[in-house]
């Protein structure tokens, strides 16, 4: 019984993130991405941060040619929607020792950015 309770709690924690990124709007996410992420990132070039095209579903630390922190390279994370939501909310809480420190506080904006990253990852350059 206790096991089911634990599973129920975990599901209740996981579902909002899943639902949130499922409801994201890629068009809105493009605007947020360019405005808030575009200082360091681009889809197709490694800048201060790594290139993002293809990030959705990719193993963390996987952008070719980018010098990641050891913490992120060894994290074993895969960039699912739920993990991206946790990452954008507080990257250092998810991966202590990572260099990224930017917080995207608004859940809607996170969902929209994740939708944009997913759409752009599916699209060819």
């Amino acid at each position, binding site marked *: 019984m206790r096991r089911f309770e634990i599973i129920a709690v975990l599901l209740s924690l996981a579902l909002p993130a899943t639902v949130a990124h499922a409801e994201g709007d890629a068009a809105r996410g493009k605007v947020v991405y360019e*405005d*808030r*992420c*575009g*200082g*360091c990132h681009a889809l197709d070039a490694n800048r201060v941060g790594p290139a993002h095209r293809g990030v959705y579903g990719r193993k963390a630390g996987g952008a070719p040619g980018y010098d990641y922190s050891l913490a992120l390279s060894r994290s074993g994370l895969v960039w699912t929607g739920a993990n991206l939501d946790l990452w954008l909310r507080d990257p250092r809480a998810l991966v202590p020792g990572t*260099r990224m420190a930017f917080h995207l506080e608004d859940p809607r904006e996170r969902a929209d950015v994740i939708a944009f990253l997913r759409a752009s990852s599916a699209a060819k350059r």
Partner: protein
Amino acid sequence: MTLNVSTLANPGRRTALRAGGLGVLSVAAIGVLAGAPGMARAKDAHSGDIDILNIALGLEHEAIAAYQVGAQSGLLQKPVLAVAVQFQGHHKGHRDALIGAITKLGGTPVQPKSMNDYAMSLGAASIKSQADILHLAQRLERGAANAYLGVIPSFQDRAFAQVSARLAADEVMHWTALTGALGEALPTMPLTFGG
């Protein structure tokens, strides 16, 4: 798109801001470090802050390179070129302050990439006009301002949060001037940056 060169090419007040601004940054922020002899020994305790400062330094290297691309393009009218060089000077001031802070904390400042790398990652090959350069600078300034605001919650040492806010303010100053020079309207809604 009409360029309002006179808006961008009136650097008098900004020169005053720059002259005072960098000095204050040194006293209020970097001076915190200079006056704290134990700070360098506390590298591990500040490793998170060093990483953020190095990201900021990376942004400043990139901004300096972007203005260099613009300056060397031959596309900027003379008064616009003068202001672009002035803004590049602000970024060089930011760079030097960040290098000083990182070094005093015991960190290793990140080095700039090559100009070829910057030209490629910034899409310099697609720049055909003065407006293209101003749009690139406008986009980078806005992105940098938002980046500096977005990392504020992550600083362990609150003094650096203030530094980050001050860097963001300079980037917003640049963005506003560039937006005016491009003849674009300022945002109608408040709280444009950060969010």
